[in-house]
């Protein structure tokens, strides 16, 4: 088997996206979802149920009394929070495995994913972008999922990749492509297809290092994810062995005439939001 065939086989071998979460997200995307239907879907998975109750009863919400039924929790959290909780729980598990190829510290991929999701939401809100918040959150959270599959391949050929980065000034992702035949972004896109995510999310993941390549109707979302990724990498949220060796995609900043000070203010708002999110998610900042 050639190296590229091996990588494709590894994509095929990825476990499916948790079905309970997939079904619940689908139900939640209905304009008028039924709480009872949602409870029926969720109660099958004990871990998911426990997580929902745990969040509801966490200090963050400071409820006067304990919520003990799933139905009550679903009503209390509402669609947005519930969706984010379900996605975060599922994606956290996907990223949570040894990642020799990319990570320097444990849980780095997850921290980076979470930071990018928070950054994406902050940018969307403050730059007043006409994008669905769920799409932003989901694509940003999953943008590096290809690294889960490519990790071992990168680890095996690391010296070659590093040489291209250091000696030829390649971005890490460009070096992956040259050495392995694929980069983590396109592999992530293939995983998203396999998991049945909608085309805009597939595009945002596939082209988060080359937003200009995304189809026109998916361009804004992809540019946003690319920018959010740039900024979290820059600040240092879960930057792995690839460090800051990625190209800056500032097109969106130019288009929207975001100046130095505006960007600094956005980073300030991001940092405050991130501190809160880490608190809820139990992640170290």
């Amino acid at each position, binding site marked *: 088997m050639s190296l590229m065939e091996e990588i494709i086989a590894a994509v095929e071998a990825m476990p499916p996206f948790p079905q309970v979460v997939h079904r619940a997200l689908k139900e939640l995307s209905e304009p008028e979802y039924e709480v009872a239907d949602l409870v029926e879907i969720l109660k099958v998975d004990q871990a998911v149920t426990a997580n929902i109750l745990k969040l509801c009863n966490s200090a963050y919400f400071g409820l006067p009394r304990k919520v003990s039924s799933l139905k009550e929790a679903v009503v209390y959290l509402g669609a947005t929070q519930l969706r984010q909780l379900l996605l975060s729980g599922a994606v956290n598990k996907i990223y949570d495995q040894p990642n020799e190829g990319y990570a320097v510290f444990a849980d780095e991929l997850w921290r980076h994913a979470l930071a990018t999701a928070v950054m994406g939401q902050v940018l969307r809100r403050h730059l007043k972008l006409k994008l669905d918040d769920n799409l932003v959150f989901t694509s940003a959270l999953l943008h590096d999922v290809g690294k889960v599959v490519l990790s071992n391949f990168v680890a095996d050929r690391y010296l070659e990749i590093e040489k291209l980065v250091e000696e030829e000034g390649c*971005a890490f992702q460009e070096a992956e492509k040259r050495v392995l035949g694929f980069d983590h972004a396109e592999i992530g896109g293939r995983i998203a297809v396999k998991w049945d995510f909608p085309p805009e999310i597939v595009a945002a993941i596939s082209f988060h290092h080359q937003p200009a390549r995304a189809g026109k109707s998916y361009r804004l979302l992809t540019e946003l994810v690319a920018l959010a990724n740039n900024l979290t990498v820059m600040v240092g949220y879960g930057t792995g062995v690839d460090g*800051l060796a990625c190209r800056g995609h500032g097109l969106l900043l130019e288009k929207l005439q975001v100046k*130095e*000070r505006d960007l*600094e*203010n956005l980073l300030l708002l991001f*940092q*405050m939001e991130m501190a809160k999110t880490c608190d809820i998610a139990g992640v170290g900042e």
Partner: protein
Amino acid sequence: MALVTVGIADFKVSNNPEDTLVSYSLGSCIGLAVYDPVAGVGGLLHYMLPDSSINQEKAEKNPAMFANRGIPLLFKSCFKLGADKNRMIVKVAGGSRIMGGAGAFDIGKRNYAVLRKIFSKNRVAIAGEDIGGSYNRTLYLQIADGRTSLKIAKKGVVEL
């Protein structure tokens, strides 16, 4: 030995020789380590942005996020533990940039420029630094002897 993490937009000071202060993953952020060998007092600041004038109100709650507020705060907190400005050994790391990340993106450069300005105004000398590039750094400060070391992914640990 206790490893004390200094997160983004945070600082820690210590006079406990058991402590090692550490800031992980410095990208465009700057890690500033200061140490008085006579008093055995050291501090580490991990700031993210150059100037608090962008949002004074939020800066009140998060002074360590900014160079102009965090740097004086770090020094003053060390003085409270008996450190003396004239004995301070100062090391700086971080200020990286993404590739082709000029203009608005190059916050690392602005973070470092403000630090230099504050230091030249206050006559503070830098004893060691590692700035810029496109990689991220982890900075350690050992309170027992003031040793600072820098860890760069896949490149190992060097003394600063």
